[in-house]
């Protein structure tokens, strides 16, 4: 039996392997896992991140976690202050009733969209490269939606009345107004959060089982044992599991498009010039995917560098991600232009004024930050050198993150600050809001760093599945099998 496996089984110790180059399944296509890695090597690469003893946690990691956790602690204090004083601690005025609270909300929900796009839409389109990045993109989605919910739940003023948003039977016989876009938003964001969480957890279970089986310390055995639900990799289970995964993906794909569509309805269903446009749903979805992929790059590039995952997250992944940033960035640029065209073509004075005011009014600086970061920056990805370079990708993705925050600021604040009555015109200046934004980043990064430390950051089972060796017909097994399975061709139809 040993002879049948020697052809493909590499030594367990990664240093003893030498330069074994595995054949390429499709000629000319780069392998998704770089280097001479077999299944066990993938397990080792990913698990080593989680399996370092707690005391051996790298110092820079602890520093990052401390920084993020202090941001989170500050956020806790800020929420207390907000609850005590009310939204008067913000610079919101009349007519600018929505400002950073909604800007932060839309910003964070948008970021979440890339995770679902990677995990669901790329899955349905059989984009195998997604397997190396889907796990932390999904984690990013969940934490971003938590950050978004913390913004939108806290902006209501009397936060303790938030349960009115849900259809809970009450003594007044009142129900929420299901015709209101704000109520649609409640359902969209909550559904999105729950479905993303279920999808993420379903994908995690087989990998939790890997960590459980490798655990040597009691708390790990119990922790991963509980999370893995007793998963034993039974093929009978995999059949149902894969169906469930497909169904979750099939529902998540339209869900992710619907969520930002509904977020855009918060604006588009109103009659305010600058908001009341039919282009908003696709424009918001493109922007969400754009900002989300930029955040994926922001998180992925340092992670692959410091966690030693460069063989699993290769230049190909960076390039593909950048291509999506380029496409969606161009879509967003097109939407900006189209908004102006529609405003001009409508012949409506108020529409025309709103857009000219965006460009040259008191908030001209926000508009031009938005345009330069979102429209000009991604165009550099036309150059192959730029889009395969981790450094360039990180810098440009950072600008996109900034630009997309400003996009939401431009949409929300500049449309509001010039009301129909000139006497109502006002200028919005933030007061304490910057702590609000920093606080959500603290929340997000605390959760994300804890995730990196304790959860498998790469979907091991899925990566193994897309390696050439995973295919039973892989040529490495071809002649090896013949010696002990002569009857196969007659029985199974697998030759």
């Amino acid at each position, binding site marked *: *039996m040993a002879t*049948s*496996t020697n052809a493909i*089984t590499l030594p367990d110790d990664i240093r003893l392997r030498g330069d074994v180059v595995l054949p390429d399944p499709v000629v000319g296509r780069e392998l998704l896992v770089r280097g001479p890695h077999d*299944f*066990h090597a993938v*397990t080792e690469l990913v698990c080593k991140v989680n399996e370092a003893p707690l005391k051996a946690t790298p110092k820079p990691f602890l520093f990052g976690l401390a920084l993020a956790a202090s941001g989170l602690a500050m956020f806790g204090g800020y929420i207390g202050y907000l609850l005590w004083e009310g939204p008067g601690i913000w610079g919101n005025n009349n007519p600018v009733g929505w400002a950073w609270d909604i800007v932060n909300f839309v910003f964070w929900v948008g970021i979440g969209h890339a995770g679902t796009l990677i995990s669901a839409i790329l899955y349905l389109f059989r984009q195998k490269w997604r397997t190396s990045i889907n796990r932390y993109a999904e984690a990013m989605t969940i934490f971003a939606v938590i950050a978004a919910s913390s913004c939108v739940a806290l902006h209501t003023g009397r936060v303790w009345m938030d349960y009115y948003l849900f*259809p809970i039977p009450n003594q007044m*016989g009142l*129900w929420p*107004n*299901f*015709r209101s*876009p704000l*109520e*649609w938003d409640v*359902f969209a964001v909550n*559904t999105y959060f*729950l*479905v993303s969480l*279920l*999808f993420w*957890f379903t994908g995690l279970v*087989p990998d939790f*089982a890997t960590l*459980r089986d*490798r655990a040597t310390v009691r708390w790990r055995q119990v922790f991963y*044992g509980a999370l893995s*639900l*007793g998963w034993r*990799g*039974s*093929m*009978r*289970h*995999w*059949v*149902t*599991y894969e*169906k*469930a995964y497909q*169904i*979750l993906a099939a*529902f*998540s794909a339209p*869900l992710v498009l619907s969520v930002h569509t*509904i977020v855009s309805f918060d604006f588009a269903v109103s009659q305010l010039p600058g908001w009341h446009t039919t282009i908003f749903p696709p424009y918001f979805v493109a922007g969400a995917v754009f900002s989300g992929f930029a955040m994926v790059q922001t998180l992925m590039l340092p992670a692959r560098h410091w966690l030693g995952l460069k063989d699993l997250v290769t230049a190909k992944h960076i390039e593909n991600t950048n291509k999506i940033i380029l496409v969606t960035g161009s879509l967003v640029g097109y939407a900006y232009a189209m908004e102006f065209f529609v405003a001009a073509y409508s012949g409506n004075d108020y529409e025309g004024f709103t857009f000219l005011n965006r460009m040259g009014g008191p908030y001209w600086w926000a508009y031009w930050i938005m345009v330069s970061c979102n429209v000009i920056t991604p165009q550099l990805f036309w150059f192959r050198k730029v889009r395969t370079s981790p450094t360039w990708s990180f810098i440009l993705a950072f600008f996109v993150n900034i630009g997309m925050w400003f996009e939401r600021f431009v949409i929300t604040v500049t449309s509001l600050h010039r009301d129909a009555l000139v006497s109502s015109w006002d200028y919005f200046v933030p007061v304490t809001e910057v702590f609000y934004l920093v606080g959500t980043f603290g929340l997000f990064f605390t959760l994300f760093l804890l995730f990196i430390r304790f959860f498998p950051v790469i979907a091991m*089972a899925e990566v*193994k599945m897309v390696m050439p060796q*995973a*295919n*039973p*017909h*892989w040529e490495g*097994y071809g002649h090896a099998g013949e010696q002990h*399975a002569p*009857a196969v061709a007659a*029985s*199974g139809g*697998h030759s």
Partner: protein
Amino acid sequence: MSAPRLWGVLAQYENPYTITRACEQVRDAGYSEWDACVPFPVHGLDRAMGLKPSKLPWIVLAVGIAGSSFALFFEAWAMGTAYPMVVGGKPLFSLPAFVPVWYEMTVLSSCVTAFLANWILNGLPRPHHPAFASKAFERVTDDKFFIMVEASDPKFDLEKTKALLTFAGATLVEELEP
């Protein structure tokens, strides 16, 4: 019960190719109480094992349709009957405005069903399994492939089953206690 009781036999295989061939042989030998455990779903292994497609999609379809109908009914009832109120000049049954919540509830009920049905149909969570006693089985979630045949199978015969599994290319064969 006398001596050590026997739950079944566990055999280890090294790669997707040998496990697929071995599963075909176990299937063709007519076993029914057996299973293959693999680190990732091996393409075509369900056919090599002679497994039927999962019932899960039908359950999701049924609950999804029920959840979807309930959501629309509830919206119409809450807005039109329980507390009728005209908002924005829309009729009491204003279908277009009901669509987003209706849609989200369809997705929610289907996805929660898919999630729960997956674990329930698979009999998970299940904290213990006889195979967990095997040291070799720890690599089932890593890079090894296993077949286990239960002693309760009508065709089970310790020596014959072991011989079948070994001949099919097993690198290790173990007996499991319950």
